């Protein structure tokens, strides 16, 4: 298969790489860029949300995005969230309320939460549940995840 070239921004840095066109963003992140925070939990079927990253401000399942589609886009992954060792408020809230158990779903859940707060900085619990309904977690029953997102949202300045 002929390779294609893709240039895009990843966590604020521009990268150009060549890849077979049938590869997904998730594969490229994990295999080519060594960014293994995004996970595969459903076999790339778009069912689990463990692979969630932010693409041009919106949460996407990176297992459903082909590499050609990211040309010119800006991608944010969990690895880009904490600048110089400081946790992002969402990350801090997840740690503080105990919303992390096995942690396998966590990067995806946090990225989906970040996209949610970008769009709706002060969501109701219902909004949080709606916004995270594509992210499966088998450990927490979601109670503390919703708590964490609410707490992180409360810490944002009201507009």
């Amino acid at each position: 298969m002929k390779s294609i070239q893709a240039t895009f921004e990843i966590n604020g840095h521009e990268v150009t790489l060549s890849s077979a066109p049938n590869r997904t963003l998730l594969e490229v992140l994990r295999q080519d860029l060594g960014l293994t925070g995004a996970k595969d939990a459903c076999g790339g079927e778009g069912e689990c949300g463990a692979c969630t990253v932010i693409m041009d401000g919106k949460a996407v399942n990176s297992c459903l995005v082909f590499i050609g589609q990211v040309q010119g886009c800006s991608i944010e992954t969990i690895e880009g969230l904490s600048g110089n060792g400081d946790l992002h408020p969402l990350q801090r809230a997840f740690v503080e309320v105990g919303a992390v158990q096995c942690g396998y779903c966590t990067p995806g859940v946090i990225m989906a939460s970040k996209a949610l707060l970008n769009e709706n900085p002060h969501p109701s619990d219902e909004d949080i549940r709606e916004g995270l309904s594509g992210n499966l977690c088998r450990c927490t029953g979601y109670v503390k995840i919703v708590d964490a997102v609410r707490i992180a949202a409360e810490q944002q300045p009201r507009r």
Partner: protein
Amino acid sequence: MTEETLTLGKSELRKDAWDKVTGAAQYVADIPLTDLCHAVIVRSPLHYGRILGINKSAAQNIPGVLRVLAAEDIPGNKIFGPLLQDQPSLAIDIVRHLGEPVAIVIADNLETARMASELVKVEYEPLEPVFDPGQSLKPGGPRLHPEGNLAAQFDIQDGDIEAGFAEADVVLENTFSVPRISPAYMEPENSLARWNEDGLITVWVSSQHPFTDQVFIADALDLPVEKVQVKSAVIGGAFGGKEDSSLAILAALSAWAVRGAVRIVNTRNESFLAHPKRHPALIKMKLGAKRDGTLVALRAMSHMDTGAYASYGPAVGIIFTETLAGSYRIPNVHFETFVAYTNSPLSGAMRGFGSPQSHFALESMLDMLAAELDMHPLALRRKNMLRPGDKMFTGVVVNDTANSLPICLDQAEAIIKRFSQIEPAPGKTVGVGMALAAQSMGLGAKVPDDSTHRLEWSPDGDVYVHLGSPDMGQGLAMAAEQVTAEALGLPYEVVKTIPLDTLTSPNGNVTCASRMTYMVGNALIDAADRLIQQLLDEAARMMNFPREQLSYQVGRVVCPDGQKVDAAEIASRVADDGRTLQCESTFSFPYPEETTPQHLPIGMPHVIFCFGAQIVRVEVDPEIGNVDVTHLVAIHDVGRVISKPAVEGQIEGAVATGLGYALYEEMPLKEHQQWVDSFTEYLIPTTKDVPLNYEIIILEVPEASGPYGAKGIGEIPLVPTAPAVANAVYDAVGVRVKSLPLTPEKLIKI
């Protein structure tokens, strides 16, 4: 709890959480190794068949393919199994379930391995499969294993069952069925192995029992165990399902065969087909009671489907049987349980381990009996609940922790009253239901259950916990660190857990059976005591004081002259001698001979139980049969809270799984005899499926043998959920559904 604690019961932060929220945590699939090869398993397309031939050559000739392996390439034991040696690592002559590993293709990249795996030509003669455990035990069907199709059988009696039923004023008889469900941890199974120049094989696992993996790998490769190093990676959930060594063996075999490094990662679909599930079961139950509600007799005949291989099926059969009488005193019982082989995917350990199945039947029956007797379900339970000093049907005398049962029921009464006053949403019918639950702790009598862990005082002042059992994500490490900090009088921050490595860690035994906090806590309290003694011995020697004049105080040795010396200082002088200030301790699950009945099969009885209750309010749409759990209260006794968020986290997660069991999860055969094998069809609860109104009540009735009084909480919170929902649905619409899950069709069909 009035006494001051240092860290016990406090909301400490999990130390592994930082890596997990930043994406730095390394699960097996994330570990970078140079020259890593990838393996893909060739799996059986048949439920049952004879292998006539395997032609590897087309795959072998693809550039990039290093090896194609089949059973003949395994140098040592080709068969493994945690309880019964019945499971081939790669199929030998026969395939017994869809998805069974037949061969394995190793290539220098994943794409090539995948593509080549399709070129391995396996010729089969299809055989007629059997999926029903009752059918499988009838004569004339296929014989799946040389010893027959019965993996285990239990026949337990107490009292006089005939006399019991003769005494009964009311007798109810019903049949219940519970489905096969998947543990559905988010991280699919995987393993990574590297063959090292010196002949050592290093294997990274996501496993509840690395020391067992080590033995099976050594056995398969015909190596001494010390040539196999198993390391615990970060585990992405396990719930019992990762008490299975199959991928660890295959990864090690592959690395050994290519003299390199090889990773295997299951797809979700492979996980569904080829990894242990919760046992489906058919339970026939007959319950007799007096007019006043006194239970007098319980008979059960049950068939459990353990699938193609036994895995932990026989042990699941034990706990299932032992929990058939739940939290109740029933003088006459007779339980027969058959654990049968079929051509279904294998069933094994999963959170609850038999108890969710037995409780669905029993707790449903109790509500049916209450209706028959025109008694309140709570009153019926109160009349029959176990009390301290009661003898269970196994002969075990119930300990003081049964004092939690009346508290559960009192609380439940108030909650039921409160729930009953909430107005239904328009067009909905409301119901409230509850269930009690009992869950055993430990592996059962006569099963060796030693758990060893080590503490090390490092010269930098930190104390390291060398945990001998993996933290599967539930937070075992935090519990271990808190207990250690409490016992040594140190801040939680300075106690740190070292990841498990079979070369250097003590053997803490498998992480399972609601007993880890209990085992680890007890071992570490003892290790801490002895570490302090060692510290004082060293200090006495170093400073030339008589030993008895020294004392220990929060990380320091106090000398008779008032001088205080940091433990770190002593540790560093011990290190200068080339030694380490450390102490190991083993805790053995106690089955006191005087009080543990000896007449039962191996693994029976269990002697310590956890108790709890759940109350749910449901709204049912009578038109479409949809069940919405709007309110839920979970009341659970943990003996003593070590970490509140962790206890809550266990309850919240287990309840969600319990709701999935109640309402949607099942893995049936669909058209063309394929199993449901993806999250597209197998639904697990999402954020929108857990009740908005959720309350947890934690009881602390101390367990005398537990660390600071603590006992287990990992499994029990998913046990009462499904029967509580079924009872609430009955309360709402008067329909008694006797099979899980409670899908809308079952509600409107009747």
